[in-house]
């Protein structure tokens, strides 16, 4: 009861949802939790504080490795922006698992282990993100912003990623859970440099 438990990596996410918050209250929480490793979201008066677990982080890293293998092998000019704050002052804020700027397009990757109350697509629409990839329950779902709305797409609509095979990517993400090195090799083999 009064003894601290040993600190081991928690397997699952810990998500707290705090409703009825103002933008100013969100900024106080954000400042209080700066550099703590949590990820913060704000939208429509709801603050979410996410502490990603081991499973979440593993899949985030696997997906990032594969995307980055493709970008590097194919010499795609990219700015890797990681979990950088995406913010529209007074309105919306989010810290994705991974993010990239690829030839004028913003791409976000989110691993969903525990869903919160904030509708992530509405949030990212408010933040003007061109394409969002969700990994959830072994499936990859892609959304591209078209005429101000997200539409689910089978392939990336970012020109530099058009040749990326989503079915193979999914297979390799799953393979990566047990064998990360092999997954990257398999993925590279399926996407030869022209």
């Amino acid at each position, binding site marked *: 009861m009064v003894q601290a438990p040993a600190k081991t990596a928690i397997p699952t996410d*810990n998500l707290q949802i705090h409703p009825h918050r103002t933008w100013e209250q969100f900024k106080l929480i954000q400042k209080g939790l700066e550099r703590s490793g949590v990820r913060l979201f704000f939208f429509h008066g709801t603050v979410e504080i996410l502490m990603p677990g081991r499973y979440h982080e593993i899949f985030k890293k696997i997906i990032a490795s594969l995307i980055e293998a493709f970008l590097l092998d194919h010499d795609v000019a990219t700015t890797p922006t990681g979990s950088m704050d995406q913010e529209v002052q007074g309105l919306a804020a989010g810290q994705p698992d991974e993010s990239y700027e690829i030839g004028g397009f913003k791409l976000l990757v989110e691993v969903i282990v525990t869903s919160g109350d904030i509708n992530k697509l509405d949030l990212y629409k408010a933040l003007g993100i061109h394409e969002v990839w969700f990994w959830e329950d072994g499936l990859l779902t892609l959304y591209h912003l078209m005429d101000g709305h997200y539409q689910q797409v089978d392939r990336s609509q970012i020109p530099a990623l058009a040749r990326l095979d989503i079915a193979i990517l999914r297979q390799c993400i799953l393979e990566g859970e047990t064998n990360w090195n092999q997954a990257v090799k398999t993925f590279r083999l399926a996407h030869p440099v022209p």
Partner: protein
Amino acid sequence: MVQAPPKASIHIPDNLQIHPARTWEQFKLIQKGLEDLSGVHLFFFQGTVEILMPCREHELFKKIIAILIETFLLDRNVDFIPTGSADYESVGVASAQPDESYEIGDHKLAIEITVTSGTIQKLELYKALGVHEVWFWEDGTLQLHHLIDGNYQQVDQSQIPDLATLNVAVLIRCILMGETSRTQAIEALRLAHAGHDKSIY
């Protein structure tokens, strides 16, 4: 994936977040950012911030214990100040929001339901806050700690004079009973204490 699940599930555990390496100033920012949220309890001690969102079971036991203690005190005409989850704070050092708290005479009593343990040593925290007596309810049992010569000692009975005749074994039984029936629990508590002192009976 992007839709919020319906908010109906009740058998969820406490949600506790532990944020280490925080300063007192960072804690105060978090506290201000989360102000007026009744379902959130904040703790700060030795650089760790804990944000606790108690679950239903947690709240249920808190209320049962509160009802029984208050019944005991009110029956005996003891005037007490129910301070609930009010902040206990020692600026720059420690801050806590117990599940329940009382000022009984000159004594401060804090009650904590432990469903999920954090990393903050609660007894050290309450010592820093100068709370005279702390009761922990965990896994169906009650542990009492009283501050004696600057250290907590586990005690079998409350050392707060107005609670000295409260039979802790009976209280535990009534708390467990209270999970199914509050009225029966109060009745059993009253019956067990009826002959023991000059009460209203």
